[in-house]
């Protein structure tokens, strides 16, 4: 096993984009779009609309990234987000009408807290099954994904739940000094996670588990506890994404954002996160998200189909993943 997997890991490592490649790519895109679109591309409006669209995918990608770093995968993030979004939506639509003052504020806070609690519960389930029962993450989260979706559909009967108070809507649509509030939330997720990964014992252990879980355990690390916490954290991020999503759409549903699932993996891998674990930085992921968003917004301005955007995203992933291979060839 060791030889083949080592090689696979090395290939995976080499296949991930570096920050340098990404910056170069971003610069090239800017030049191309500056020529084809002109000033409109740099207008405040365009920038703001980009900033509104990025946070959902960004927070979900962070959730995916955490699992990937540990050598796993979390397929249940979207389903978790929808389940916790529906929980919040149920509570809001049920108790907000007719309430006022402190109760009005309290119910909103409690609803969001309940959403987080649901997300944490899913994370505990994932973490327990993966870390303590030894189920492979892809299988475990495939199961919880279906389970969560099932509960969400079962309880909502597939209906959309909508109509929330202003503060909630503000989370998804408001701005602070021109900066979308959702972007601030993304920053409040990304910075602490970057700090956690780079500068805390927990973060260091996550990377080590991603490269070799057994050797990490032999070094005295309680790898099961680390994995459990990690999947709870990943789930909680899905909970944050849930709040942003339901606020932006002013509604919740069991099937929102399902197409995001594979895009989060795409963004993470483009951002240099090794799909086999152990390597990757939040900074790389954010750069990848900006690149994806720039392409999407530019195509929008050029009146090109969003589906062409998808195809270009796929193409860029292959190109960036192939860079180390060609670089290696050129060096030789």
């Amino acid at each position, binding site marked *: 096993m060791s030889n083949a997997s080592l090689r696979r890991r090395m290939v995976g490592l080499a296949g991930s984009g570096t920050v340098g490649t990404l910056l170069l790519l971003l610069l090239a895109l800017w030049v191309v779009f500056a020529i084809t679109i002109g000033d409109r591309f740099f207008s405040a409006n365009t920038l703001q609309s980009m900033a509104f669209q990025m946070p959902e995918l960004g927070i979900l990608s962070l959730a995916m990234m955490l699992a990937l770093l540990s050598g796993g995968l979390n397929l249940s993030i979207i389903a978790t987000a929808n389940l916790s979004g529906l929980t919040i939506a149920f509570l809001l639509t049920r108790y907000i009408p007719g309430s006022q003052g402190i109760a009005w504020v309290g119910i909103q806070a409690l609803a969001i807290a309940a959403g987080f609690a649901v997300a944490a519960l899913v994370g505990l389930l994932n973490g327990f099954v993966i870390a303590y029962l030894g189920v492979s993450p892809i299988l475990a989260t495939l199961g*919880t994904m279906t389970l969560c979706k099932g509960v969400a559909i079962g309880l909502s009967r597939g209906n959309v739940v909508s109509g929330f108070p202003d503060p909630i809507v503000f989370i998804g649509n408001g701005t602070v000094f021109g900066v979308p509030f959702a972007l601030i939330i993304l920053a409040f997720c990304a910075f602490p996670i970057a700090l956690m990964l780079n500068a805390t014992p927990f973060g260091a252990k996550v990377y080590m588990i991603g490269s070799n879980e057994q050797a990490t355990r032999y070094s005295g690390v309680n790898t099961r506890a680390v994995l459990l916490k990690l999947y709870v954290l990943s789930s909680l991020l899905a909970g944050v994404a849930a709040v942003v999503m339901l606020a932006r759409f002013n509604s919740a549903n069991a099937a929102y954002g399902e197409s995001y699932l594979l895009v989060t993996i795409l963004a993470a891998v483009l951002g240099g996160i090794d799909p086999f674990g152990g390597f990757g930085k939040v900074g790389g992921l954010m750069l990848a998200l900006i690149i994806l968003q720039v392409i999407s917004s530019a195509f929008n301005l050029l009146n090109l189909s969003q589906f062409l955007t998808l195809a270009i995203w796929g193409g860029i992933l292959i190109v960036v993943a192939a860079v180390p291979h060609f670089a290696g060839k050129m060096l030789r």
Partner: protein
Amino acid sequence: MPKAHVASFGRFRRSHEFWLLLVILGLCAGLGFANAQFLTLQNLFDLLTSYAFVGILALGLLVVLIAGGIDISFTATASVAQYVTLSLANAYGANWISVFAIAIGIGGALGALNAVFIQKLRIPSIIVSIATLNIFYGLLIFFTGGKYIYSLPDWFATGIFWFEFEWGKDSSYGVNLQILALALAFLVTWLLLNRTNIGRQIYAMGGNADAAQRLGFHVFGLNILVYGYMGVMAGIASLIQAQLAQSVAPTVLVGKELDVVAAVVLGGASLMGGVGTVLGTFLGLTLLAVLQNGIILLGVSSYWSPFFVGLVILISVSATAWSQRERRTRSARA
């Protein structure tokens, strides 16, 4: 019983497939008891027909997983093959042979393209297939505008119905296109994997890629074959799906990747490569089908169906992992 048979039965009893079979038999007995409808021929044929699409894709994915890779671009491949083939059939006319030849050609080519990216650019298969999923699907919708095709050639819409026979008062059964394709896919995949040297090479490569290289396997060719086979299955599945739905809907297939993954891994195929059987895939598919069907027959709202499916997946993978862990600790002590 001869000694060899005892040994092989003992091996089967320890296998994943045996436990899966027990679970399915138990489930069937319970469902048959609870609802007389369940164990009818009508229901059996309906089940086979509606799960043929997932089943054929699952067989393609099984081969990829055994070879040590993964592919999730097959839904996009199927969408492309379906749209192009039936558009051509509408425009220029065609027959059964030509539509299947075109769909197989398109599917095989797109699948082989995955293999080229994986082998020649040295990119892990998971990355390649996420990328090509987006490329194939994005381009398809870009060029077609995502428009449905409702008018299909008459002969295609009518389909086939062989070996028709009457049962009871006014129900007649027969082998339709879906069942025929599913049966053929099972047969061919089983033959490929167990009766040809290429199939054994696929197992070997999935079990130890380095050794395969050292022993002089044609690794690139094998990968073209494996991913091409997945594409061919996607092409076939796409046609029988269109025939069943009586339309071409370019946006409904993408997103079903994980249903197929679930069937194959429930059937015991490993994402690490080298492990998995056609029988296991059949049983994994059966478990999902029986479960979803049973929930409806039991009168549970179909809204709750994914919940039970998720529950069964979780319980079954947990139980498998747990029993493996127990066995490991026991053998470590022995």
